[in-house]
């Protein structure tokens, strides 16, 4: 798809990133009087990285890592989630979402299996939102915040479930591309079994992100970096040897998923509509 002299994915000064992100988690948690964090562990690299950052920011005793498997989830995911938590030295628990999901699927027989693509997608979203429900409940029980684990690549591509895995109180890695997540994870000692595992949403057996997206994360990151950070237009991207169909596909995907990155639209009828012209920082008064 691309010749060899194309731009590389963005680099990352891992020492600086570590410092900035740990400071962020500490400040944005403690300024509102909180001390604890809860996060969902998928067995993948993003949540393992956020966990490493969280224990450095708040102390391992203040972080609860929770795996939320469905009965069909890859057993390796649970194993690696445990491994990530052990590596970070924090508390780990498991919440089986199977009874919750199956109770819902029973009422909607078309979801009883993932035979069609539409059913697979809906089931995936149900899993993701049930995990969110459990995490937010556990965060209330622990008097902690849910830390987000979505990276910039998947946020831009819309490769996540709105109100599901995209939901969090604060997210330390939402401005890091996937390739930067990998670099920082290696730096912070995330176990190589997790770092080297092909990224997967684990929504069905054998699923991998890169197969589903149709491109490698390195290629996507190089393009997104050129599009977003360097603001290159289509002609400039083509001149850098990005394939036109690749540019168009990714660009369309980024644009179509803008809605996922914004709060719901509010119909304007007053002079001060929330977030339009009623504008305050979230950290107002802290």
């Amino acid at each position: 798809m691309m010749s060899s002299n194309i731009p590389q994915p963005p680099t990352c000064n891992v020492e600086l990133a570590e410092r900035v992100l740990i400071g962020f988690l500490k400040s944005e948690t403690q300024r509102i009087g909180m001390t604890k964090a809860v996060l969902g562990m998928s067995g993948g690299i993003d949540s393992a990285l956020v966990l490493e950052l969280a224990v450095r920011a708040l102390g391992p005793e203040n972080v609860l890592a929770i795996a939320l498997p469905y009965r069909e989830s890859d057993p390796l995911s649970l194993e690696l989630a445990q491994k990530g938590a052990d590596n970070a030295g924090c508390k780990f628990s498991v919440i089986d979402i199977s009874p919750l999901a199956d109770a819902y699927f029973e009422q909607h027989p078309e979801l009883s299996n993932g035979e069609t693509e539409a059913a697979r997608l809906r089931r995936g979203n149900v899993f993701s939102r049930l995990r969110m429900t459990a995490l937010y409940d556990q965060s209330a029980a622990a008097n902690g915040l849910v830390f987000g684990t979505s990276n910039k690549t998947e946020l831009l591509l819309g490769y996540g479930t709105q109100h599901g895995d995209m939901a969090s109180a604060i997210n330390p890695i939402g401005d890091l591309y996937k390739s930067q997540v990998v670099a920082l994870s290696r730096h912070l000692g995330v176990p190589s079994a997790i770092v080297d595992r092909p990224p997967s949403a684990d929504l069905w057996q054998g699923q991998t992100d890169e197969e589903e997206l149709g491109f490698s994360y390195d290629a996507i990151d190089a393009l997104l970096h050129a599009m977003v950070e360097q603001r290159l237009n289509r002609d400039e991207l083509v001149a850098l040897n990005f394939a036109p169909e690749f540019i168009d596909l990714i660009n369309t995907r980024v644009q179509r998923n803008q809605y996922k990155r914004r709060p719901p639209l509010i119909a304007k009828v007053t002079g001060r509509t929330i977030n339009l012209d009623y504008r305050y920082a979230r950290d107002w008064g802290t």
Partner: protein
Amino acid sequence: MNCRIAICQINPKLGLVADNLQSHHQWLDRCLEQKADFALFPELSLTGYILRDLTSDVALTLDSPQIGEIVARSKDISIAFGFVEHSPDHRFYNSFVFAEDGVIKHVHRKVHLPDYGIFEEGRYFAAGNNFTTFESKHGRFGFLICEDAWHLSSAWLHFLQGADALLVPVASPSRGIKTDGAHLASQKSWHELCAAQSKFLQTWVVRCNRVGYEDGVLFDGESAINSPAGEVVAAAHHSEEDLVVYELTSSALKRARVETPLRRNAHANLVRRQLAIIANDPDLSGLIDDE
């Protein structure tokens, strides 16, 4: 000049003027303990930075009791601090006050209000219209509030007015992790800018950045003092509150200016003549911004 200056690298609370006022008092106490002559705070030190619709709520008039409280302390130490100024005609300025001997000696209203990228100052603030150097008992100073310093003409105007030191209060959102060194990319730019301005304008440059996070945005400190030879002679920590005290001297100014007499050869009148020509050149209309 001879001035033992203190950089107060603080972490203001967003929108909490009373809390920040209290912290200014505590930092002034620390400066006095360190026998400083002059305390410099960061941009918007009384209010925090990402104010948005809070701008008008946290604004203070120059004769308000809160401003008066700090000005009163300038009987013991010269003080420069930042706040949102509410003008008599209800405009709001990103302002800096210099107080000495219990009175306000100078007010600078930020001229260059960034309104690109993360910045929204152009939406909320009115712009100042001059760079005026002022005399203190410790030397001759000029303010450049953050973005003011990125426009090279601002510092040059202070240079022409004989500034001994440029005072640069900053609230700089730190960004850029694709760097090799120890500094975020935006911070590196600040170090380069202040090194160049101090060296080529042969003045002290005293930069006071803030620290802390607001809505995920880091202000990364690294306040510093550059000598008239361009070298960093004092520096504060990144990311944490810090107090740095250093003595600015005339002798360093003299050394730099004897070695390379840039000030003597500035040719300000030539620049003035050419500016007038450029401003009236029809071929350049559109390139010259008349405000």
